[in-house]
C-alpha cells in the first residue's frame, strides 16, 4: 500500500532550517492497522501529511499503491485525496457553517455524486457512527466526540481503502476516545488499511503494529525519558 524510501522533509523558515523528517524508510501493507507513536515534534504529523498527500517531501520517494506521488499532477493528487484516502484530523477540521450532514457531503460533492446519492450516503454514514439524530446539527452544537464521529463519517464518504487518523483521540476523554478506537477497529475489520497517530501507549499497545518516531526518524523502540 505504502512504500517510502529515504523520505526527508526540511522546513526553511528564513535562515533557520528544520528537519522534520530524516531519511524515513517504511512499508505498510494493505489491511494493516498501525499506530504511530512518538513525542511531540518527532515528525509524526509530518509523516502523516505526506502519506495523505496533503504535503510533499523534500527528498526521497513515496509510492502509494505502486505509483510515485511526486509524479502525480495536481488533479491526480486531488483525486487521490478524494477517492483513496480518508483523513481524520486531531482538530476535526469541520466546516463551521455546515451541518453534520453537509460536512460529510463535502468529499461526495467533489466526487461529483448526484444529490440523491449524496444524501443517502450521508445518512448511512452518520447512522453508522451513531449520529442519526444529529444530522442537522452544526459543529458548535456537538461535543468533541460527536465532532470526531462526523469527521470519521466524512473520511468514509467515498469508501477509501486507506484511513489516516492524526491523533483522533487527542482532544477527547478516555471513554470517548475508546469508543472512537473501537470504530477504527471495525473499519479495519472491513478490510481497510489504517494508520493512526496516538499519544496513548495503552491504545498503541493494542494495535497490531507500532511505528516509533523520534527526532524525525523511525526508531525500533522509544528511549523513554524517565
Amino acid at each position, binding site marked *: 500500500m505504502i512504500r517510502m524510501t529515504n523520505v526527508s522533509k526540511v522546513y526553511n523558515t528564513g535562515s533557520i532550517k528544520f528537519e522534520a523528517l530524516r531519511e524515513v524508510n517504511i512499508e505498510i501493507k494493505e489491511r494493516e492497522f498501525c499506530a504511530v507513536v512518538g513525542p511531540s515534534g518527532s515528525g509524526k504529523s509530518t509523516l502523516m*501529511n505526506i502519506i495523505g498527500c*496533503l*504535503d510533499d517531501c523534500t527528498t526521497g520517494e513515496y509510492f502509494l499503491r505502486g505509483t510515485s506521488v511526486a509524479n502525480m499532477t495536481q*488533479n491526480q493528487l486531488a*483525486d487521490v485525496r478524494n*477517492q483513496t484516502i480518508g483523513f481524520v484530523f486531531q482538530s476535526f477540521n469541520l466546516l463551521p*457553517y455546515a451541518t453534520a450532514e453537509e460536512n460529510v457531503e*463535502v*468529499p461526495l460533492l467533489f466526487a461529483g455524486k448526484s444529490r440523491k446519492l449524496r444524501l443517502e450516503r450521508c445518512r448511512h454514514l452518520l447512522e453508522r457512527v451513531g449520529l442519526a439524530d444529529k444530522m442537522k446539527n452544526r459543529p458548535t452544537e456537538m461535543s468533541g466526540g460527536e465532532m470526531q464521529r462526523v469527521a470519521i463519517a466524512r473520511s468514509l464518504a467515498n469508501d477509501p481503502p486507506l484511513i489516516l487518523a492524526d491523533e483522533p483521540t487527542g482532544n477527547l476523554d478516555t471513554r470517548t476516545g475508546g469508543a472512537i478506537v473501537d470504530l477504527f477497529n471495525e473499519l479495519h475489520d472491513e478490510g481497510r488499511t489504517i494508520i493512526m497517530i496516538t499519544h496513548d501507549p495503552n491504545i498503541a499497545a493494542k494495535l497490531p503494529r507500532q511505528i516509533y518516531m523520534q527526532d524525525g526518524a523511525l526508531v525500533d523502540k522509544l528511549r523513554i525519558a524517565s
Partner: protein
Amino acid sequence: MKSLSILWNVFLRDFRKQSGRMTLTIVGLLWGTVSIMLLLSFGEGLYQQMSLNEKGMGEGFSVIWGGRTNKEFKGLPRGRRIWFLADDLPYFSKKIPDAKLITGEMMRWGQRISYKGKYVSHMVNGLYPEYESLRAMYPQMGGRFVNKKDIELKRRVVFLGDEVKKELMPEVENPVGEMVFINSVPFTVIGILSPKQQMNSYASQDAYNVFIPLSTYRTIWNEPYYDNLILAVDKKDYGRMKEFTDRLNLAAAAKYKYDPDDKVLGIWDTIESQKLMGNILLGLKYFLGFVGFMTLAIAGVGVANIMYVSVKERTREIGVKMAMGARRATIQLQFITEALFITFMGGGIGIALIYSATEAFKMIPLDIPVLDIMGRPTVSLVDGLIVTLILGTMGVVAGYFPSRKASSVNPVDSLRYE
C-alpha cells in the same frame, strides 16, 4: 460537464450556507455603486441644467449701444452723442451683408403695468419679430410673439414675461386676449413667455419684462433712438464675432463721423461670455469627473478590502476542501463565480435603485427655485456600467489572488492558517 456541475453544486451550497457573508459583501458593493452614482447624477443634473440655462438668453449675438465721443474728430468737438436711429438698421445691413441679422430694441424702465386694479412696475421692451428666436422668447401654449402685422399696423398688443403674468393675473388660466394697461394705454395680451432659466442678461431678466411691437412703442413714446442694436451671426461665424462688430464700428464711425479707435460704442459679445461660461462648465465637468474618480477609487478599495478579507477568512475552508479532494480549478473558479455574482448583484441592484430613485424624483412636480439652478439628479446608465465594471474588476481581482494562493500551496499550509 462533470466538473461544471461540481462547481455549480459547490457554489450553490456555499452561497446558501454563507448567505450572511455574501449579503454583506453585496451590500458593500451596492453601497459603493450607489454613492458614486448619486454623486455623478447630481453632477450630471447640475451640468445639464447649467448648459440649458446658459442658452436662456439665446445665443450667437452681440449687443451694441451708443455713447459719446471722447476725442475731437475732423473739426467736430468731443462729447457728441452717437445714438442709433431707425434708418441705421438698413444701413448696417447693407454694410455687413454676411451678418445673420441686425435688429434694434428700445426699452423703458419702471413703467406702470396694470390689470383689473392691480399694478406692477416693470420694463417695457419695444422690438421686432426676429427677437423671438434670437433671444429665445418662446410663447407658452395658446399664445404667440410679436409678428410682422403687429409692426405694420402698430397694434397695441403685449407679450408678457411669465413672472409678470404671475404677479398680475395669477388665477387667469388663459390670459391671451385679456386687457392690460401700460401707463394708461390699453394693450391686448397675445402671449406669455415660456419659463426659462437665464444665466446672462442685460437690463433685466426677460421673465420680468413686457414686450410690445417696436412701431407701437415708437408711437407711444415718440422715441427716435434705439437703446440697443443686436448683431447676430451664423453659427459658422461664431469665432469671427469681433470682426463683425469691428466692421459695424467702422460703418458707424463713417456715418456719424467719429474716430473708429475712440471706443464710442458699447459692445457686449455674448459669444465671448458664453465661451467663458462654457469653460466654467467644462471645468465643472472635469471637477465632477475627478471627484467621481476619487470616490470610485475609495469605493474600489472598500470592495477590494471586503473581498480580500472574505476570501482570506476562508483559507482554512479552502484547506479542508483541498484535503477532501477538491481540485484547484474548482476552488478558484468557485471564488471567481462568487465574486462575479456579488458584483452583478451589488452593481445591478445599485444601478436599479439609483435609476428608479432619480426617475421618481423627476416625476414629482416640485417648484423649488434651487432646482432651476441645480437641476435634477440624472443617471447615465453607461456611467453605471463603467462603475460596476471597475468595482467588480477590483473585487474579482482582490478575491482571486488570495483564493489562488490558498489553493496553490499544499493543503496542509492552508489548513494551518488561522
